[in-house]
Structures are given as C-alpha cells and as structure tokens.
C-alpha cells in the first residue's frame, strides 16, 4: 500500500517536471518565433498597383511636432488595402532606426476597413499597443499622425476607430483613449498646431 502511494507520488512529480520542461520549451519557441517574425517584418508594404506618392504626417518626439513628408509607395487598387498600405508605410518610418517617434518593435496594421459612411476601422496588432511608449504626448502624436495621414490620402475618411487585435481597448498605452472615434477634422486642427 505504502509502496503504491510513494510510486504514485513519484510519478506525479515526474509528470510535473516534464510539463514544466515542456512549458519552458514552448515559451522559448514563442519568443524565438516572435523575434523571427519581427526580423522578417516588411518595412514597405507589398503592392500590386502603381507607385504612387503618398503624404505621411510624421511625428517627432524631439519637438512634439507633426511634419508632412512625401513618399512613393506601391499602392494596391482596393481602397481598404490602400489605407492599410499607407499606414504600414507610416509605421515603417517609425520602426526605422533612428526613428523620430519610435513605436514598439513588431508593430503592424493587421487590417483597415473603410466604410461607405467615411469611417475607417484600423485593426493594429497587439505589439503596437503592448510595446508603445507610454505618455500623453507620445500616444497623442501616434494617433494624430495615423488619423491625419489616412485623411490626407483619402479625404473621404472622416473618422477613425483604432482596434487592437480585433478588439476595442481602453487606452493605447495608458493615456490615449481608444474607445472613441477620432474625427479627422479635429485632428487636422491639432496637426496644424503641431506643424
């Protein structure tokens, strides 16, 4: 009887050690895959359309400003895909090193849905929000640059909703309100003040 209990106890301990080792292995693999994905991330969007000049409103942490830059990007023909490509070009600028306004490594735009009523729903990935530098001004600059850039390249986009991994989130990194719709008109005014 006692021998059975001890044997069961030992087996349970061995199972626990085995599960712990497997969990450690999985954690390492996830971290390695994430690193690999980040290294392979494209800075410029792929495109099947023509090379088109786009206007990017680039934020600068140094002086808290937004500056208009022109860049030539291969843009897809479909409207939502074009909006996504423009935003990915903007993120690409921020992901370069050195960056005028660094955002978290691995930040990306998963999808953009442009609706007929002038609403654009931007679905970012988790890395964008989870590793975004925290601060009122830093987050405000990111949101403003995204909304103003979208509106500058498609003036029918009048309001923007930002999602993270397909879901609504309370704030970007503790400050900027992501529960609301951002009106392009309001942020264009902000952009003018920041130029």
């Amino acid at each position: 009887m006692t021998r059975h209990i001890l044997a069961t106890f030992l087996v349970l301990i061995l199972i626990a050690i085995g599960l712990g080792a497997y969990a450690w292995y999985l954690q390492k693999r996830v971290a390695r895959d994430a690193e690999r994905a980040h290294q392979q991330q494209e800075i410029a969007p792929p495109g099947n359309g023509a090379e088109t000049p786009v206007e990017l409103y680039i934020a600068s942490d140094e002086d808290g400003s937004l500056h208009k830059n022109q860049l030539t990007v291969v843009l897809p023909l479909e409207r939502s895909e074009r909006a996504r490509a423009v935003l990915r070009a903007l993120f690409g600028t921020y992901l370069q090193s050195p960056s005028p306004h660094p955002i978290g490594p691995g930040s990306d735009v998963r999808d953009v849905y442009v609706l007929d009523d002038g609403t654009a729903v931007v679905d970012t990935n988790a890395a964008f929000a989870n590793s975004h530098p925290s601060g009122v001004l830093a987050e405000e600059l990111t949101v403003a640059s995204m909304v103003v850039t979208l509106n500058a390249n498609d003036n029918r986009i009048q309001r923007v909703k930002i999602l993270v991994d397909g879901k609504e989130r309370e704030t970007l990194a503790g400050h900027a309100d992501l529960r609301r719709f951002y009106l392009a008109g309001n942020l264009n005014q902000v952009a003018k003040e920041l130029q």
Partner: protein
Amino acid sequence: MNPASRAPRAALVAALACVLTFAVAYLDRVHAQAESRQLAVFSLQATYSVPLVDINGLPYVGLVEVLEPLGSVDARRDGKKYKVQFTPPGGKKAELQFNEGRDKGKVRGNNFKIAANFAFQGERGYIPLGSVSSLLAQLLSTQIVLHQASQRLFIGGSETRYSLDLRKGTPSRLLIGFSSPVNPTIATEPGYVHLKFQRAPVVSSGNDSVTFDDPVLTGAFFSEHDGMAQLDITGKGALMANFADGGKTIIVTAAPITAVEATPPLPQAAAPPAQTATQAMPRPPEAPPAPRFLVLIDPAHGGDDIGAAITPSLPEKDVALALARRVQHQLAIKGITSSLLRTGDTNLSLDQRATWANAVRPALYLSIHAANTGKGVHVFTSLLPVADVSRGGFLPWDTAQASFLDLSSAVAGSIAAELEARKLPNTTLVAALRPMNNIAAPAIAVELAPNPSGVESLANAAYQDTVAQSIAAGVAAVRGKLPEVAP
C-alpha cells in the same frame, strides 16, 4: 494494515499538513500585506495619508511620502545609504542620512536613533512608524503627536477638540462644540448617531466615555481606529443630528417620531418601503452651504498601473504623486484649497476617478502625468468639440467635459503663461485623454517631461517645485473666472 506500513503514511500526511500550514500562513501574510493600511497625517498645511508597510513585523512609513507634503524633499539612494534633503516652507534646509540595516542615522548633523533598523524597498527608504514623531519634531521644530494604535499623526497643534453640552428639555439636546469646523459622515440607527471623522483631526476631549442622566440622550463614546475618529451618541429611540455655527457645532436630539405617527396611513397597495423615523421625518430648513473653491488633483496611474516606465526604477505613478503633492503645497501657499484623488499607491480605474471627481464637484480638476518623451511641460485640454449645452442638467458621460472647455482652455493658457514666465519649455495641446472627457468641471492635464538636463530631472525636487509653482500661479490667476461650487 500493520503498524510498520502505517508509519510512512503518517509521515506523508504530516508532511502534507506542514505544507498546507505553511501555505495558509504565507497566504495570510500576503493578505495582511495586501490590506492597505494608512497613516493619516494632519498638519495645518495639509491633510494626507501615507501607506504603512510591514517590515519584519513592524509598521514602517516611507520617508519621502511623509515629508513631501510638508516641504521640499530631495532624496536619493546611494548603495546602502539614503540621503535626504528637506526644506520646510520658510525654514532651513535639513540633511538626513540613514543606512540600511542600521538603527542610527544623522539628522542635521546630529546622531538620531530610530526604533528599528532602517530599510529599503526598491529605491524608497522606510523608517519605523514609532520614530516618525521624534524625526518630525527635529525637522519642523513643532509639537508632534502620534496616536500609533489608531494610525493618526498630528503636526503643529492641528488637533480639533470637542466639548459636550447637554441641554435638558423637551426634547433634550446635546450640543457638540468643535474647536474648528468639521464635516463628519453621519449615520443614524435607532438609539445611535455615529459621527465618523475621516478628514478632521478630531481627538479625545479627555474623557472618552460619558454617560448622561437624561431620558432621551444616554451617553457619548469616542474612539479612534484605522486613521479616523468616531463619536457615537447613544439614546433611547430615534435620534437626529444637525450642523450649526458653520460646522463648529453638531446638535443631536430626538427625532420627532410623533410627526411620523400622525401621518395618515397610505392605502396598502401604494405602501412605500418601511422607513425609520429618522428617514421619514421632515428636515428643518438649513442654510445653504457656503460655496467653496476646491482644486481636485489627480495623480495619474497608481497601484498595478505604473504608467510610463520613466527609468527602470522610476515609474510615472511615483513622479505624478510627488508632483501632485508639490502642487497641493504651492496651492496652499496661495490660499487655495485642494485635495488629492489618491494619496498612496492605489489602484483606481478611469471611471472611478471620473465618478469621484464629479461627486466632489471641484472648481478645477487637474490630472498630473509624467513621461520621458518630449521636453518641458505639456498642458492638455480635452479633445472634444465645444458644446453649447446647459451645465445644470444631466450631461452625457463621454462628453461631459464639452461644456467646460472654454474655462479649461483659460486655465491651460494661464498655466502656460506662468511656465513661460519661468522660462520652462511648454506645449499646450488638446488630447483624447481619459478621464478628462468625463469630468463635469473645468479640467486640464499636465504632463511633466524632462528638462534639458535629461530624464533624471523628472525626479528633481527643484524642477518639480518650479513646475508646481507655475501651476499654482496659473490657477490663482484665473481663480476669479472659475465658479465656486456649493459642497
């Protein structure tokens, strides 16, 4: 089963019992630590609370947390040494030094013994609660009284005393006179009136238990616990309490039960829920409370929400709280009453902050943040279209701030002008920052960013003081434009 096979099983059961006992003891300890005990500090300048931390079974307080509301503090850890410079308003700078694991330190160059060893938690230095009064007495050269069991500290004769005066008659009245105005929470139940003083430094009048030879009012009992004082009035039947003399007197008397009994009974179908006599009685007309000007300061983040990691050892929540205390101090110098939404490392959701702020009805809501990006000071008003709606009725939660934007902008502009006058780089912007949009009062947010000397400047006392002075001066300059509100 023979006795030889029972012994190992008994050993296994005993081992499991030990593990369970240790687990329960550990959980109990964790639970005890998680309970946020606070030391309530009452001074003539400020009323605030400081978290109590359990170290080696003794209550400790953070040195900076205690000193910051009382003056200018510059503290830094240097290995095992903790060096603090403290300057009280209008006083001389004092230097303090303590060593980790030692019960001796230096205050103003003299040896200073504390009740137990000095300790660190991260970069913060902690001293035993029992040594706070002697330390403050040396630093402030004033009378310090610590009620250690009830976690209350009184600085510079800030105590409020009370007297009891029973006026017999029909009905009898108990007049409780206070040496300064009080605003306790009043709870009534049949035979009792409970006065709970959380913000007022009410102390015992010398006799904690008084009995009266009266058919209605039978006694008064004073007690202190958990940073607050409580005065319980006992009697026979329902009692009621009213304020008089601008809050310096509370009158306790029997509730007019006969008035309720005389009320004709309602038809059964329409009978309201049962009410106590106190709830149902007609209240005597009261003079409208005097309007007051209160600035509510909200140090952002706190608890698990650290905000931005300014440096690996300096979270935004700590910088925000330190700056908020300095702003409160500077406002007090200008004669402006202010209150902190959090005084310790507390978890508060954005909705809780807005709910509490709106309940307080401040003349101005001031949110304090810090960041390691940008430079100087960023002043924000809410990113909302200005709404021309009445401020009297219900306001939509998500856009409650819209009708106060003109006043909020006036405050932001005034603070920016004061920052400019002190040659501090500043930016004034709109931002979609919660909970500002939900505040039904003029509201701004201030974000402290580094000065040209780098990110370490965010913890610099002189830099924070200059910014706090600018904010206080900016608020004082537009005080006339902001509405005073009835409490």
